[in-house]
């Protein structure tokens, strides 16, 4: 489908590396386009819905059909352009390189260290733990490992963080958190605080064992300050100044309420 203008040679060369990935992305979009058309075909087009006789031009399927067709045509266009530009060869080379490379290379580990805590915070911790503790856990890990710029510490702390999170998950899966909260309302928060303290000490241990200990000690203190002050400041601004309730208000938030009302 060479209908569309082929880009200038300079730009073409610059973006040539993308052609392998273009094949994968265009196929994903092609599937999305088909999904949209299938979804649209199930919507009322000319039949009646909710007691109202429909006509094609009022149908809720009209726009999705246009979008679905456009996505399919554009995906085919990108796919054919990528194939013409040697995208398949590039894709094979890229897969071969990946196979040769260690599965968890430096870049992949950094990506995982960015995404795992973020997903964990949003999908698990925010609903399970007090907002301040959940955010402190996220920040302590993320700021420390990326600020230190030490790949050994990053790898080891990521492993340790994952172990802590698995323990956390076990609590949730076995509903042990609900049982324990039945005995004392903030048990899960207290356990998470213990996890946070363990994580802080683990990072400190790694920093002390590092070759560039003196450099890292200063960074460790800065990272820790930002990690622990930020959740308190954010919670105070949003909860007490903007009156926005936090996703979960537990141990720390209740403590903040006590201080707030004592001052007020």
């Amino acid at each position, binding site marked *: 489908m*060479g*209908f*569309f*203008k*082929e*880009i200038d040679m300079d*730009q073409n060369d610059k*973006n040539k590396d*993308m052609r392998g990935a*273009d094949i994968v*992305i265009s196929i994903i979009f092609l599937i*999305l386009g088909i999904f*949209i058309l299938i*979804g649209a075909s199930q*919507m009322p087009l000319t039949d009646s*819905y909710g007691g109202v006789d429909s*006509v*094609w*031009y*009022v*149908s*809720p399927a*009209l*726009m*999705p059909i246009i*979008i679905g067709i*456009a*996505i399919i045509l*554009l*995906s085919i*266009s*990108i796919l054919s352009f990528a194939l013409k530009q040697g995208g398949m060869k590039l894709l094979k080379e890229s897969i071969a390189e990946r196979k040769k490379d260690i599965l968890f290379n430096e*870049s992949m580990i*950094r*990506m995982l*260290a*960015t995404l795992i805590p*973020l*997903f964990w915070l*949003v999908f698990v911790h*925010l*609903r399970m733990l007090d907002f301040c503790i959940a955010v402190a856990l*996220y*920040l302590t890990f*993320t*700021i420390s490992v*990326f*600020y230190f*710029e030490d790949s050994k510490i990053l790898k080891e702390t990521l492993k340790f963080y994952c172990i802590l999170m698995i323990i956390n998950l076990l609590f949730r899966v076995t509903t042990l958190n609900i049982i324990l909260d039945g005995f004392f309302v903030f048990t899960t928060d207290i356990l998470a605080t213990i996890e946070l303290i363990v994580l802080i000490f683990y990072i400190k241990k790694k920093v002390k064992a590092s070759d560039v200990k003196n450099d890292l000690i200063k960074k460790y203190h*800065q990272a820790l300050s*930002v990690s622990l002050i*930020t*959740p308190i400041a*954010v919670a105070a601004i*949003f909860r007490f100044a*903007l*009156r*926005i*309730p936090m*996703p979960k208000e537990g141990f720390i938030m209740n403590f903040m309420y006590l201080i707030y009302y004592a001052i007020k």
Partner: protein
Amino acid sequence: MNVLNQFSIFFAQIGSILTSPVQLLLLFGCTFLGIIFGALPGLTATLGVALLTTLTYGMDLNVAMVALMAIYVGAVYGGSFSAITLNIPGTAASAATAMEGYPMAKKGLAGKALGLTTTASAIGTVISIFFVVIFIPVISKLALQFTSVEYFLLAFFGILISGSISCPDTVQKGWLAGFFGLFLAMVGTDSLQVYPRFTLGSYALEGGIETVPVLIGAFGIPQIIQVLKEQQQPPKATKLDKIIPSWRSIGSKFKHIVRSALIGVGIGAVPGIGEDIAAWVSYGTAKGTSKTPELYGTGCEEGIIATEVANNACIGGAMIPLLSMGIPGSPPAAMLLGALLLHGVSPGPMLQIDRPGFITEIAAILLLASFAMWFCGIFLAPKVVKILQVPPALFMPVVGILCIIGSYALGLKIFNLYLMIPMGVITYYLVKFGFPVPPLVIGVILGKMADANLRRGLMISEGSLKPFFTRPVALILLIVIVATFLTNTALYKNLKAKRKAKRL
């Protein structure tokens, strides 16, 4: 409303801001915050406006607009700080500034370069205010004559043109991103027949995908991933001497300023195209028309003025389609649209009738914001340069938390976060593989409008496509859409090549 009334509203607004300590503090505070957002690589004007939107939710509309316009103006200008002192453009719009600003800084003229960018940016914003005041009422009056067909075509044109111009790779990718955005807008209950579309049986999706969390996800999360994933050494800034406003240099380049401002306003007014394109086009034009093009790249003052006037003039330009038709002119303006809707303001031709004087009030805020920007730029520059030394690994995770709490705060829905994070990751990969974000965002924002107006238009004509060809504005828009499409085809390229060969 007559001119005298407009003037009285304009000066009343200025007086009300200047006499209110809270608004004055917000004006300067948010402008400074905007400068920091613009200056720090990884943070953008759009993200700044997005995060502040969540904080202004409980504020009075007028106060909220002061904060939002101030951060917008500050952030567009702020990119020049890191561009000049670090050679790292804080925003895409300031990439062209780095071409001339950094060589000047290397010569020991960082203060002069910053003085030029500060004054040029302020002038660019002020000039664009005239266009806001003059053009919005005219376009709004014209837009009152628009029917559903014109609105559908306008939305479609916005997506198509933004996909064509903002795409770093093949044009199809830009359009595909736009259609993907349109698809996201289709999720939820349809407005005409209340039919749930692509909700996958989820009640949470029936209300549709909320725009603000999607925008925060699309502009915030990819930046966080990118900055943290790439190893970043703390930047070392060039030594900064005293900031000199350089009025004489600016005054001698009046022609350049006017031309650059016109480019900025013009590009800003095109839906979905932002400050970065305006800056580059203006820089290219300045270089192309210069008598000494060989000086460009070595620290040329004209180049700095051209880029900075244009990218700040783009602010006013972007406000024109936003306030007159409800179509955002740039990504930060798209975020402003979300903020206005949150505050119960529906931008469009009816705005002049629903809220007479609102546009004049915005113009007054823009004028004060440009003064605040000039003041902060000249007197607080050393503080900004100090903040620039903060390693991104220290503040990016904090920005992540602000994105999370900001998205949650809008409607107190955890579900917003479940949308925001995957949307951020998807956008990260799309950007990585050459897909632009602006058409995607424009698609999400204009999708519902395009859908409802297409069907409404066809309902009125009982399924006939005749209004697309018989209504003058619709026909013009249709011709522009077809022309945009055709100029990106191989057929057009071959014809052009043949003509060129014939001429030779």
